């Protein structure tokens, strides 16, 4: 066992140094900036589009007193649900020729009138292209009802006592935490998977594999390669987490401490996040290393990457079923299926306070890591080194 570990360490040390001390590792560290920059870019474009697009306007043809009451009713609604989501209204005094005024307003481009409300508060009538917009109609109905109610419809005083968190708010916040944690785990593993797949290409192309295979067991090499990549990604993760916490500290009052607390508490959750990241990485990494070991060229690895990415997305979607339903049959299946188990259990840690399921899950996942590594090493010997006796598939993991 000591020799096995020592051999794995020799490979891990070489791979870790080769990865971390290369110039390309700097690009690797910058990797999260690209999705963040893209998110920021598309977000700002979206915001600009949203603000630059003039919202449709409803022209209210009514005496000034009635328009004032409707406008006040709108202000009340805006205070409750936000001004941005409410229909805009513009008041017009009634003209002698009501039909001509209506026609002229509907043709107006500045402001872009979508509908005209006439008939005052007693007999309101709406004309315009609003058939496909029940929200506008509903909002106008509420405004008219409140305006009709007048002072009697004024909002009553409500004494508010602030508590830090209620079960309802916590539940919502924890769903958010679960979702964010799961998504982060997924994207990190997705990013690393292609790197792991190509781990053996170097040795196979420069023939070092022959020297290594003559000096140690192939599974020691697999373990070494896997843990080297794990160490490199943990290093990168520490850099990213530190940068993220610093950023959060700068942009959000209270910093990271103001984030919604997960069910197992922050320290426990962070510890589990690190463990599940390790497990998720080792499970996917071992599987991808096994698949990648069959490839001889970078092109073959690229060809393999697409189905692997889709498979990962499918597993992510499966693991996401846990969120908000941690005790459902689907959630249990996601926790039991080895490749979705770390993501499912991390989401569970955000929502449920019990610890024992995590102990069971971590042991379960560790068994699968060992099994996949064993099968991977055997497959490598069989398909690449053309060695090893024929093993019936039902005994593959045991031989």
């Amino acid at each position, binding site marked *: 066992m000591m*020799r096995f570990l*020592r*051999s794995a360490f*020799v490979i891990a*040390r*070489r791979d870790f140094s*080769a990865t971390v001390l*290369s110039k390309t590792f700097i690009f690797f560290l910058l990797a999260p900036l690209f999705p963040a920059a893209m998110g920021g870019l598309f977000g700002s474009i979206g915001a600009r589009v949203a603000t630059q697009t003039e919202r449709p306007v409803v022209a209210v043809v009514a005496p000034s007193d009635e328009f004032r009451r409707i406008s006040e009713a709108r202000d009340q609604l805006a205070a409750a649900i936000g001004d941005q989501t409410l229909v805009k209204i513009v008041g017009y005094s009634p003209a002698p020729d009501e039909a001509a005024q209506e026609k002229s307003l509907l043709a107006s481009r500045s402001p872009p009138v979508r509908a005209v409300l006439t008939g005052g508060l007693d007999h309101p009538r709406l004309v315009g292209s609003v058939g496909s917009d029940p929200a506008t109609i509903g909002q106008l109905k509420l405004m008219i009802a409140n305006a009709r109610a007048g002072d009697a419809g004024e909002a009553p005083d409500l004494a508010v006592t602030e508590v830090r968190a209620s079960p309802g708010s916590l539940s919502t916040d924890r769903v958010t935490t679960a979702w964010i944690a799961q998504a982060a785990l997924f994207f990190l593993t997705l990013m690393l998977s292609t790197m792991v797949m190509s781990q053996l290409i*170097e*040795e196979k192309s*420069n*023939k*070092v*594999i*022959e*020297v*290594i*295979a*003559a*000096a*140690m*067991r192939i599974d020691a090499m697999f373990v070494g390669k896997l843990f080297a990549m794990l160490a490199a990604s943990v290093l990168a993760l520490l850099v990213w987490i530190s940068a993220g916490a610093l950023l959060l500290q700068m942009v959000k009052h209270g910093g990271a401490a103001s984030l919604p607390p997960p069910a197992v508490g922050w320290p426990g959750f962070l510890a589990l996040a690190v463990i599940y990241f390790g497990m998720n990485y080792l499970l996917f990494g071992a599987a991808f290393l096994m698949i990648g070991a069959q490839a001889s060229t970078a092109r073959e690895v690229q060809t393999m990457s697409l189905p692997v990415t889709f498979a990962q997305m499918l597993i992510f979607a499966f693991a996401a079923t846990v969120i908000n339903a941690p005790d459902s049959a689907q959630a249990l299946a996601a926790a039991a299926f080895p490749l979705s188990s770390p993501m499912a259990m991390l989401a569970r840690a955000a929502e449920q306070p019990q610890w024992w399921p995590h102990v069971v899950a971590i042991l379960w996942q560790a068994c699968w890591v060992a099994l996949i590594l064993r099968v991977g090493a055997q497959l490598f*010997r069989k398909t690449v*080194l*053309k*060695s*090893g*006796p024929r093993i019936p598939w039902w005994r593959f993991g045991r031989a």
Partner: protein
Amino acid sequence: MLRQAQHERIEDGIAVEATDLVKDFGDTRAVDGVSLKVPTGTIYGLLGPNGAGKTTTLRMLLGIIDPSSGSRLVLGRERPLDAAQEIGYLPEERGLYPAMHARDAIAFMGALRGLPLAEGRRRADALLAEHDLADWGRKTIRSLSKGMAQIVQLLGTIIHKPRLIVLDEPFAGLDAINQGKLEELIRREARTGVTVIFSTHVIAHAERLCEQIAIIAKGRVAFDGRVDEARARLRPIVRLRTRSSDGRWRTAIPDGARREGDEWVFELPGDGPEPLLKALIDGGAGIETLAIERPGLHDAFVAIAGNKAAAAMREEKPE
């Protein structure tokens, strides 16, 4: 019990023993029942044309691949990887990490065999200096010439002071000067008691270096023994030139003798040179020149492996 048997084997002076090794790749049988014994401290050559099964045999002996059947005992261990720390291996297809420094590459190869990295670096510096490559120790492998890289890999093969060195076609790709250096290095290692096994398809290398050889053809061992034993399989060759073109002496020329220009060429008869000489002198041959040549390893190879295998060796790229 097994351990005791293994120790006895080592004390027998056998470093490597293969018994009926067979390797099938799908429907193709690459090695077909190879058995050989490599005495401790010898330089042992595996001789045969490309495709004969030399590399596959070596890879089985090293535990890189498992045999389909048969067994091997390497430095007393049934599983060769258990003895990996005492073995040095230079594969036919050379491989080094191009971005590594030469000294680190050597130290890494030592580390693979259990040598601490710091000690490996120290020894690497000394070895590089010894081979006039001290200035190249901190240069990357990609900046070295092919010959230099090959020497670096060879130094990596011996950095951990192995008891058994296995070299697969070590002379391939080396120029004459580096071939000479490599031959000297092999001899030097052998002088310290290290067992060296190397494969080659160049008979001259085997003839110069080896004490024992195995001739492999079509996946089988056609001969396993000392080089002089292989040569002894053939009778010495007599080359005779006479002043007289005919006479009684012609009865002394054995059947099957051939003419090469003015010379008669034939195997020395079993009763030795004296009766032949007497018959030639008494018969009035007028001996102008008479040479008795010991057959070379090439002749022995032809006799053992056949003309076809010998032709295949000749057709391969000369080194």
